């Protein structure tokens, strides 16, 4: 992932053929990397579904005979060579057959799909919240002593306070003391086929507020750190010094020169951070007992429900590949020096 992009100099954007070339190059790079990553993750999920737990265990009861166990083993193809097993596993993964949960007996793909809307809605709202808070912090930072203090406070809360502590504090204040929001759960839902949304009724929206703030504050802190670094980098450049020396008004410098450049350089990285956000939603969903992907995978991990774990791995890998591809595409289109990657890197979330 060429996130630093130090070596790429800004060129004239009038050069249309250059843009096309860059996009094609970025896309082919992306496709290659995506294939490798997906392949590796399919391999990994195959390995864990064979090594952790016993696939036969789910089909046999305490009184099963040895011969019955053997026949199930043969039926599942477990007596074939490892390569044959992997080939058939990979085939079924691409056909959409991701196996059955040990716990509920439901198809894994279906379970993941029904949980997806809750997590997606939470994640998108958190992104919106994170962007607004970090932009506000960027605006306040350096404007006055108080403003700098607020901006630093937001950054440090996101850095030093674990997500679950933020969530618990919000819960204590707004749900337990003030009683404004429900303590946990998703509230009322409006269903459209398999997609059920909590955005369309008041109770649902109320239930969304605290999880959104918890997850969004984490995202905001990440974004603010990248924005701050990008801002510092722009301020060291000669064109900025020159504009300062020309006596251009501060507000104009901020809105016309600084802000667009900061946003453009943060945009590609923020897409990658979105993947980290989905990963971090496990913790937030655990705090608020939010019925999304996160609580599903947490339960699967605690109960060693291997097919669900393998399925979740595939989903996160797919998401990461799509997001990093989009991010590469975006930065090659925008063709600006991408800001430095966030200090905390990406995907290191819990």
């Amino acid at each position: 992932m060429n996130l630093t992009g130090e070596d790429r100099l800004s060129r004239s954007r009038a050069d249309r053929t250059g843009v096309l070339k860059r996009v094609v190059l970025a896309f082919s790079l992306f496709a290659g990397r995506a294939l490798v990553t997906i392949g590796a993750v399919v391999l990994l999920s195959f390995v864990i579904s064979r090594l952790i737990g016993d696939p036969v265990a789910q089909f046999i009861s305490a009184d099963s005979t040895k011969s019955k166990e053997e026949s199930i083993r043969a039926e599942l193809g477990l007596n074939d060579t490892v390569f044959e097993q992997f080939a058939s596993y990979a085939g079924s993964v691409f056909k959409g057959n991701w196996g059955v949960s040990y716990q509920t007996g439901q198809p894994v793909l279906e379970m993941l799909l029904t949980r997806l809307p809750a997590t997606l809605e939470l994640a998108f709202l958190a992104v919106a919240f994170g962007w607004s808070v970090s932009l506000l912090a960027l605006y306040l930072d350096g404007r006055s002593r108080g403003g700098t203090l607020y901006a630093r406070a937001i950054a440090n809360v996101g850095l030093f306070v674990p997500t679950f502590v933020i969530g618990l504090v919000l819960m204590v204040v707004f749900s337990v003391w003030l009683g404004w929001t429900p303590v946990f759960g998703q509230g009322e839902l409006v269903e459209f086929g398999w997609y059920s949304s909590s955005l369309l009724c008041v109770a649902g929206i109320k239930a969304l507020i605290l999880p959104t703030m918890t997850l969004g504050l984490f995202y905001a802190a990440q974004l603010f750190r990248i924005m701050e670094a990008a801002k510092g980098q722009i301020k060291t450049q000669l064109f900025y010094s020159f504009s300062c020396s020309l006596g251009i008004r501060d507000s104009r410098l901020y809105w016309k020169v600084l802000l667009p450049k900061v946003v453009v350089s943060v945009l590609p990285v923020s897409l990658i951070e979105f993947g980290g956000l989905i990963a971090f939603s496990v913790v937030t969903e655990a705090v608020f007992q939010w019925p999304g992907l996160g609580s599903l995978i947490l339960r699967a991990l605690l109960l060693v429900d291997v097919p669900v774990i393998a399925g979740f791995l595939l989903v996160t890998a797919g998401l990461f590949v799509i997001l990093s591809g989009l991010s590469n595409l975006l930065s090659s289109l925008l063709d600006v020096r991408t800001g430095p990657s966030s200090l905390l890197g990406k995907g290191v979330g819990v």
Partner: protein
Amino acid sequence: MSEREAILPVEAPVKKAQGHLLLFWLVVLLVVAGAVAFLSPGLRTGEWSRVLLKADFLNLSTTPFWYGNSGSDYLLGTDYLGRSFLLLLLNGALLSLSVGILATVFSMVIGAVFAVLAIARGGWFDRFLLAIADIQLTLPLLMVAFLLKGFVSRMVEESWSRHWDPYILVLALALANWPLIARTVRLSLLQELSADYTRTAEIMGRSLAGRLWYHCLPNSRNTLLALASTVMLLSILGEASLSYLGLGLEKMDPSLGGLIQVGQELIFEGRFYAIVLPALALIAIASGSYWLSRFFMAREQGVISARPSCQLRLTDEVFSVHNADVGFASGKKLFRGLSFELGAGECRSLMLPSGAGKSSLAHALLRSAGILGPEARGAGIVNFDPGADTLTERSCLAMMPQDARLALDPVRTIGRLFEDLEKSGNSDAASFRKEAVELLHQLGFEDPDEIFSKRGRALSGGQAQRVVLALVLMTPARFLLLDEPTASLDAHHKSVVLEILKREKERGRGFLLLTHDQEANDALSDQVLDFGQPAESSGIPDRLAVEQPGSSDRSFEIVTLEAVGLGSGANSRLQNVSLKLHAGERLGVWGRSGAGKSSLMDVLCGLEQDFSGGVHWSVPEAGAVPAVAKVFQNPGGSLNPAFTVRRCLEEPLSFYLETESARHQARLRMLELMALVDLGEDILERPVATLSGGQAQRVALIRAIVIPPGLLICDEVTSALDSRNRERVLKLLKTIPETAIVYVSHRKDEIASLCHRVVRMEKGRIVEDAPF
């Protein structure tokens, strides 16, 4: 002789620095040992938990003292098993800290080992490693930790894995974080490996391990510490999150995360302390360990001088600076005692060679006047006192920077830049636009509207410089800092620009002109400023007789190049270069940039191995004499900033000379050479970072010739120096008659005074080879 011996201190100060380093590692080792011991199964199931965390079934779930249940033995109450909450808190904090420390150390070791391997092996291994790191990024920490625990519990018995649970968690956290570390360390080491001072050591023949240890590691210190502090934070918070989710440490022996999970039940009873206290402890540990490792980072050198504070006045009538020292926060100085006073309609000029710090001076003035913020890169006035006698009016000063293309915003059009100015001033839009168009016309733009629609990077250097001038002239600023205003203009446009500047001067503007262009100076300047004293004491003593060109012994050929080529096709950098160099011969090399001078030097130094043709040496291969040494263009860059001057100078001595007596002789020679070029012995103990450009370049040269090499390569060694330092450097080069010198320069006068022979290069070939 005896005098000299007395001056040389017996123990080098380097030892002291190593002492600090030793202490640091000792502390790290102790802390790690403590953490290992604290997590060990012996302690966890033994005395510690049995005695201190003893269950007390008579006092289950009691409340802390402020709930008013006097008579309880427990200050903070007990948990559901009747264990003291205070001790649980302490235990949890120690657990979190131990896991965090061990995970950090482990992941730093794994990441650093992989980074070094990637650099050492290069090629496919490097790419493979990056690919693995990329793939692992798709897995959240949670999954890595779980998968590892799953594997381990399958491989070993459950009771065993329960005992070693904390260590498995440490390993899992380390595995989750290593890609971040491997990438950062790799990048940082690669940067250091390509630095000039590391290259110098490479030419000297230091192995990769030696270079990494002596040159890369000390200079990556801040990066590594910053990384360690981040990883520590990630590990501590990661452990807490995992434990909170029930995937981390054993519930019966909870860390802070586990305590919060248990305490969550109690908040509905109103007992908020059960989550607040562990949360506060967690935040304190996380932020404390983060800031502690930042504390060990090397800090900037303080400001060195204590001269009477300088004054800077900037009003509509006068722009004056009195008694200013200009330099960097590191202590490096550019100018000392700079004073001038500039009134309306006047022009003062500073005639300085390129690289002498003109742009730095301009930035320093702007920063001190409060026009640029502290983030702007570059120098400042170091003894500037923004106190009583200082008056600055920000809008009265504007700068015209030298590098005009970089001064224009890369993505906004020129028209937008003029709009910025118009919106920031008081004049109305129509008259402003008319004026701007008029000015651009005068500056030789046929169609100003076309220029308005272009972006800065689409302009040529000369066009950009004129646009920048137009922008500067459209400001209401009374005083202008002109940094080489005519540098990239052709003769016609130069005269146009100088006419316009003259007119502006008559209209009452004041200029501070920083240039080395005599024509611009003659046209505008009323007075050439003496730029204060140069940053070092003057006067060159002529203690050693300096040998003149032509008297060297040309007995044998030290190196022969036969039809050397480098690269092929469009990437061809050298073509069919043949060259013979005799011992003691001084060869000047000149040519435009891109002519292949650097490639030729790389082949001679051995930095470039992948060439065709033959290079034959006839230097004695014995280790006592370096075959080849190189001095780099940038004086600051070729000395390791982590070293003192003494350590830099003595590096070749300890590398080449075996006996102490030989080293002693070499040290005496070193002192003689230093005296010859006016470097005092007091300089030996100074950190390299505090040297001025001229001093640094002389130190670099002395290091290269203190044991005279067979061949010395000098790459534009005088380009950043003023004339006085240039003379000193040339003088040094004449003290080694037995050494052949390849002197690359674009200054013909230096080549003429120094060299016996000169070759001219063009497009990777030698096109001219003539004796002087």
